[in-house]
């Protein structure tokens, strides 16, 4: 119990970092809920946020804007260049249209060229679909104008809108897929970072504190044998790691409830459990590599998870990462954790092939853990032997 309390004290000295890594999953879970983790069983169109500056105010421009407002979200923006730029850059708006004065007249005249001002958000696919919608509407208006040159512009626009709004049936097929778990892999992918940091924070910091010369020497002369101390130390560290794991996934249980108990959720939980074992092994190994009280060690402890997660596609989608970086990433356990998440993400339904693939990735992660544990025990065994000799020499 004394050792357990001491470890809690060590964790308390890093309470700020501890709280951050426990708060991150809560933030991510909230984010998950906002991006569509609800248990929807109906098909939903991805709506595009757009803003319009209509200087024409004609029947044509009004009809176009009304058509675009259908199944899209119109956002009001002030006519301020900085505000427009910022909203587009940060994806608050995907598309800004400026309808110039005389746009309607240009469309009505058979030889005119209607020109639309347009600015799109960088780095998104949404504007492509929006372009198509605008072109479809204008193209139809042109055809109806061509067909009925004497008809009133109101009737032409009404006909155009009715035709352009013609939609087909979209059916969400029941292919045995889990419901409401589409965004779950994104959430679990990020957990690799928090679990790794927590493991390093708890294990590496604790073991390094216990490796300080003064504490080691005190422990050597205590009535409790070094083996018992080590056993209690190991047990206490694992209990706190397990508590951290539970605290990490608890927000998910609270927010999404029974959705997590579908096959996808359970597989993702199992994958995270495999990775937690790897994270613990990394925590043990780093505690032997870094020197206690070294300012550099805290820097590297921040840095190691960042590099592993970046190289493995935890923060940036793997398909955007250059091939040579991906090859380096494949030597890291985070890469195989992510591969299991990707496998679950890309399949519509859980199949035996997917489960096989998933177990294969889990086995690779456990192999990494075994290697790290063996390396830790070898280094620690040698250190323990040399340490005793030093202690006796001192006596």
């Amino acid at each position, binding site marked *: 119990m004394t050792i357990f309390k001491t470890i809690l004290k060590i964790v308390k000295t890093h309470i700020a970092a501890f709280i951050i890594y426990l708060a991150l999953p809560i933030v991510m879970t909230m984010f998950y809920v906002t991006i569509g983790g609800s248990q929807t069983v109906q098909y939903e169109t991805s709506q595009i946020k757009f803003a319009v500056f209509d200087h024409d105010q004609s029947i044509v421009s009004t009809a176009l804007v009304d058509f675009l407002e259908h199944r899209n979200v119109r956002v009001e923006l002030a006519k301020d260049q900085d505000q427009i730029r910022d909203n587009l850059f940060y994806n608050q708006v995907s598309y800004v249209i400026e309808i110039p004065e005389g746009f309607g007249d240009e469309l009505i005249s058979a030889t005119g060229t209607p020109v639309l001002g*347009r600015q799109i958000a*960088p780095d998104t696919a949404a504007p*492509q679909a929006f372009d198509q919608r605008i072109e479809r509407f204008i193209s139809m208006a042109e055809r109806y104008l061509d*067909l009925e040159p004497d008809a009133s512009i109101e009737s032409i626009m009404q006909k155009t809108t009715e035709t352009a*709004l013609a939609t087909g049936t*979209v059916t969400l097929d029941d292919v045995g897929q889990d419901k409401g778990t589409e965004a779950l892999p994104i959430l679990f992918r990020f957990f690799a970072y928090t679990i790794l940091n927590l493991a390093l924070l708890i294990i590496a910091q604790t073991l390094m504190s216990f490796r300080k010369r003064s504490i080691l020497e005190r422990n050597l002369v205590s009535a409790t044998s070094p083996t018992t101390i080590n056993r209690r130390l190991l047990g206490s560290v694992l209990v706190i790691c397990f508590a951290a794991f539970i605290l990490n996934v608890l927000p998910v249980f609270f927010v999404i409830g029974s959705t997590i108990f579908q096959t996808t959720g359970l597989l993702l939980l199992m994958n995270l459990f495999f990775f937690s074992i790897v994270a613990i092994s990394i925590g043990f190994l780093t505690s032997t590599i870094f020197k206690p009280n070294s*300012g550099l060690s805290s820097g590297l402890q921040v840095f190691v998870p960042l590099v592993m997660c*970046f190289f493995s596609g935890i923060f940036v989608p793997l398909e955007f990462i*250059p091939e040579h970086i991906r090859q380096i990433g494949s030597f890291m356990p985070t890469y195989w954790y992510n591969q299991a998440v990707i496998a679950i993400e890309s399949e519509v339904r859980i199949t035996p092939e997917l489960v096989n693939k998933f177990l294969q990735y889990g086995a690779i992660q456990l192999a990494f853990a075994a290697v790290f544990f063996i390396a830790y025990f070898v280094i620690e065994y040698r250190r323990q032997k040399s340490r005793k000799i030093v202690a006796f020499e001192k006596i």
Partner: protein
Amino acid sequence: MFFHVLRYRMLAYIRDRETVFWSLLFPLILTSVLSLVMSGLTNEEIVIAPAKAAVVQNDHYAAQTPLQEAIRALNADQEAPFEFTLVATPEEAKEQLIQGDIDGYFIPQDDYALDLHVAKSGMWQTMLEEFQNTYSSNARMIVNIMETNPIKGMSLLLSGLPESRLQFEKIDPDQNVTNPWGSMYFAQIALIALYASLQAVTEGSAVDPSIYPVGLRQRMTPQHHLGIVLSSFFAVFFMSLFNVGVYLIFSQFVLGLDFGLTTYPLYAIGISVAGIMCGIALGFLVSAWIPGKRNRHSVAIAISMFMVFFAGMMQMHVRQIVRTFIPFIRYINPADMITDGFYALMYYGDTSRAMMNIGLLVAFAAVCLVFTFIRIRRTRYDHL
């Protein structure tokens, strides 16, 4: 004496390995890793994968020549946003959907209608829905035209719909966002500049005789207190300038990230220098008003981290959310001013916005220094 103290304060800075790691090496290594990983994320290199769909070849499909033509044309176009495969039965299409080979499948119906089947909602499914709507509405239009003017309708059916006269024009031709992730690097410069506040806190404590023995010795020297503070200020300033300089040169010329050193060198240097001054002024302000060396460091770290978080270093969109809901924050957050300065320069070539940010940074530094001066100018000690 001024240069003597300056020299030794700089030496003390260089010998503090932990400070050198966090203020110089950490940003360099982090940026190198980020740029390696994100080198494939610039706009020119991103290829958006097409939406994949299967089309069931039933009797209605055989009767719909325009649909066949559209599919053939889109499949022939390498840059088309759609990729179609033809299957014999709906069951075969559903199997492909289950395997994840396609995003959805179409079953042609009579009257030129198309039924779309998907397994989930998403961007690719919306694109397929857009194709379905375009096809259905065009088909309905041709049917309408056939009813009103059969000759024109036939000619449209035979020759296809002519291209629209509509043209798009850029509203903002200056927009040049080739690498949207660059904004995170801009926030990193802000972090380095604000890390100068940590060293400024150390220097502020070093001249404080109640905390540090060196401060006691410095107080005994025949020099004005302000002179000692200034020498500390310049020691941190030169070292921070060196850090930012190394960071900018390394990032621009080795990693290939653009910080405007070649296109807008004066503005880039101006923002960096003003940013460092802000960081140092903030550090001196904290050391003047907060008691205890440990507390000062904690407060400086907390303020710096909050500022870079609000400037979007950890999550780019936070910056815009903060600017929308708490707009005045941008005027008291130097990290946001630094990020905004580089953002305006590099993405829009907006030198006036960059200049405004430099002005705001200088004003912020001046306010901090005034409050620091008010606090320390009448400091007296009963005994040393």
